[in-house]
């Protein structure tokens, strides 16, 4: 793996996301957006790597990200997602949800739409902690325990689930087109069916044992019932939402809060996690069986993997590699991707062979040759 270089950007990066590439073109990822936090003036910025843009290889290092444009952002950027090729949605610590449009020709950014106090307390602002979108629908969650559904280009709010949670909802993801999954700070996963009118979740899953807050969640790209979460104690949990209410496998991943977990979008045998302890781990399952990518995950000598129970009567061919079972048939490998001693890695995103992450040390790392 080539060595990974840091680009210092004078702002603490809270989120970094690749711009989606259209599936038809075989383009590599080349533009990413970042959001900053803890500054008096926070910003969202667009960056380019590779041959995009006018600047050549003057710096000597080809992959050095170049700043394309940036825009002021009110409040910390707590979450950021691409709505489509040109627009991003941000979740702010002031409770606002904003859509920004990136104008590629002039390399400028403008505010396309904003819902100023989407998340709020009766007498104060409540930070909006997570946003997920499936254009044109946008779902946001916040510290006020509310789930709000918006539609881009429509002024008002489509739906609000008040008091969806008595604690802070940290992250949200789509399970199916009409179902979302949220994680909160008392260690619960909640499934919500947006077609139902009721304001209660259709299912609640949690770890037996300590109620450790969960910070991030991601769904397996192909298997919609497999979900990975990371929490305050740095444990990586993989759940099967159809079966039972406890996770299938727990792995000790980090020594501090895990901020983000991502399955690789096209190669889901690979998983990436990043944490407050300054490490970014690349998890890879490998199997010797011919069942493609669905295999019992195993144990690595340096990782302990505790499985709650074997899948009860499930169809063997649909058992995912991440759900551990018979350890003799597979291996789980983990590699650190960053030089040691960085401050907290707050965010990561992976697309194709490119990985970008941002840290509290005000550095962005880009790796263009991730072995997947």
């Amino acid at each position, binding site marked *: 793996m080539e060595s990974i270089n840091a680009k210092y950007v004078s702002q*603490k990066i809270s989120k970094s996301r690749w711009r989606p590439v259209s599936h038809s073109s075989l383009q590599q990822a080349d533009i990413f957006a970042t959001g900053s936090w*803890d*500054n008096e003036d926070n910003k969202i910025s667009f960056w380019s790597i590779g041959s995009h843009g006018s600047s050549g290889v003057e710096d000597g290092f080809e992959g050095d990200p170049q700043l394309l444009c940036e825009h002021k952002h009110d409040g910390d950027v707590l979450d950021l997602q691409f709505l489509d090729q040109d627009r991003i949605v941000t979740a702010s610590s002031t409770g606002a949800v904003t859509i920004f449009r990136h104008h590629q020709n002039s390399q400028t950014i403008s505010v396309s739409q904003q819902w100023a106090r989407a998340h709020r307390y009766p007498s104060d602002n409540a930070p909006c902690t997570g946003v997920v979108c499936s254009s044109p629908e946008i779902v946001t969650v916040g510290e006020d325990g509310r789930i709000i559904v918006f539609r881009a280009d429509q002024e008002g709010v489509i739906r609000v689930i008040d008091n969806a*949670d008595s604690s802070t909802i940290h992250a949200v993801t789509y399970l199916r087109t009409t179902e979302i999954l949220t994680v909160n700070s*008392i260690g619960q996963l909640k499934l919500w069916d947006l077609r139902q009118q009721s304001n209660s979740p259709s299912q609640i899953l949690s770890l037996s044992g300590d109620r450790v807050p969960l910070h991030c969640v991601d769904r397996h790209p192909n298997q919609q019932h497999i979900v990975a979460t990371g929490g305050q104690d740095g444990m990586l949990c993989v759940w099967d939402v159809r079966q039972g209410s406890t996770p299938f496998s727990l792995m000790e991943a980090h020594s501090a809060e895990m901020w983000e977990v991502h399955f690789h979008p096209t190669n889901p045998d690979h998983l990436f996690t990043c944490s407050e302890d300054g490490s970014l781990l690349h998890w890879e399952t490998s199997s010797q069986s011919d069942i493609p990518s669905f295999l019992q995950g195993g144990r690595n000598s340096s990782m302990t993997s505790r499985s709650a129970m074997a899948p009860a009567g499930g169809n063997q061919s649909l058992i995912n590699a991440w759900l551990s079972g018979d350890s003799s048939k597979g291996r789980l490998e983990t590699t650190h991707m960053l030089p040691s*001693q960085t401050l907290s890695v707050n965010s990561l995103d992976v697309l194709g062979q490119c990985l970008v992450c941002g840290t509290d040390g005000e550095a962005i790392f880009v790796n263009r040759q991730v072995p997947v």
Partner: protein
Amino acid sequence: MEEVDVEPAVTNIPAASSGTHLGFAWGPGDILVYETLYKCHSFITSRLEFPGTGSGDIHEVRKDEDIYSPILRKLFNESHHIFVGLQTIREDLPSKNKKPQFVSISKNYRSVIRACMEELQQVLQKWQCNMETRYVSILLAIELIWNLCEVLFIDAAPAGSLLLHLLDWVRLHKADVDEKAREVLQSESPAEHRDYWDVVGAAYVLQGRLEEARQMLVKQATLQPAARKMYKQMDTLLSKMPFYNPGGTQTLTEFDVKWRHWHEEVDRCLQDNSFASNKHLELICKILVGDEDTLLEHKDLLSTWYHFLVTRLLFCHPTVKPTELHYYAQSCLTMFLDSRSVPEPLDSILLAAFEFDIHQVIKDCSIALNNWWFVAHLTDLLDHCKLLQSHNLHFGSNLREFLLLEYASGLFTHHSLWQLAVDYFDHCPEFGRVYLELQIERVPLDTERKALKVLRICEQRQMSEQVRSICKIMAMRALRNNRLGSALSWSIRAKDAAFATLISERFLQDYCARGTFSDLDLIDNLGPAMLLSDRLTFLGKYREFHKLYGEKRFREASKLLLSLMTAKIAPRSFWMTLLTDALPLLEQKEVSHHIVRYAVYGLLLSNIKKTSKYSYLRSCNQRIFGFFSGKNNIKDVLII
């Protein structure tokens, strides 16, 4: 008090009119100043001046502006990375293995400074703003000083290689030579360019770059075939100048002998007037022989006294020893500067370095610079090289720790860079922890995410008091906004039983007021957190009782109710509610009456005992007896 080293700088507060009486208060990195209502006594006219206007403004006076510069921030972040790496070098390695490591760390620091400087220059060129011009010159000076300290202190080159290092040092900081040379070479006819002789004569020869000088001379030689013999002679002289090779087999003495031979040869050429017909070549010859007056005539080409020093050493004393440096340095400084001009702070710092007075260097730099960054990192590196004598300062810590604490405290006042400061405090063994404890509580916590990061820092260092206070702040805030789940999760993190009790009380109050529980998702799923406080356990169990009742499992419900009553974890205020809940159970056939009867009896009795008034006791007793014998309704009993 100690005497001051320099006069304190005066800062005018523009908004406050002169002569007003000002009050002030110290902050961690700044001073708050305000106009008072008092009259100001004037010493000049010795009568009371006009009273202050007492305007309501508060002025914030901040000494260190540098940490707010976006480009300098990169310097702070990158050097933090290097600093942390330096601290983790193992102590038990023998010192000869560590020196190359220290030198490479020093080079790392310098490359960071250079990168910052280059970026600043690019920005200045692009935007042409004046704000950050002074940073460029400061960074240049810093790099110059650091480089010299690396050569003299860290690398500690002995005689012979010392001069070579000093030559490199000078060449690195006089980059305009290459620019001029490029200009000359790219012109139509380089040999006739007006700067040609400056480049050859001054720039290259003065810096000891004789190979390049020879190449340039060739161009001139081809133009003047008549003087070929003279050029050939000069070329020979230039090529034969010996340079010491540290890795080679030649000893210093042998080199010295060889060099003296060469020097005599050059002198002979001068005496023979071999170059008399060409004043340029004559000039070069004089430089080669180290003639002071010639060198001083070309002050503009040398531009600095330390360039003059190194050139002079190159052509007069190439085997100079480190201990002899300061004689030459002092004399060069005096010769170079006119009698009118005053040495600048940079000059005295460099002079102190040549005198190997590390403490003086650090002291002068501390005074001259606005920000503690440079002295803190340099002192830390020198301390690792074991070059600082550990004399304690009056307040107990040593110099390195003092400077690091000052630097880190400055960082902590920044809204964003406070995270870097934590690592600096970690590596100050004596006072670092105390400073961190005091500072970390003052970080404003706007979002939960920031609070989590601060908490993690405190937990990793076992600062349990700070953990408790932060969790309490966040829990109170959550409680005020009616986020009971969040409040509970914060009190679980702090293992704060008292707060958990408070939250449970809130739930129970809500229940009493509304008749139903709020936030069932929380109470139903408390898990082991229930054990954190008695009240919380009661809450969880009480909810379970309700669930059992709702599922019509009356026997288990009544057993649970019984255990709740007898376990003494029920709050006083809730006993009435418990008893009221017992009522419908009595009407269920499956529930064995005597269980409930005993429970009710026990509860009432324990309540009555506290009042212990005999008449009261008797009436209660009668009523209870009446109930159990079926005469009275339980509602009559309950009017206690």
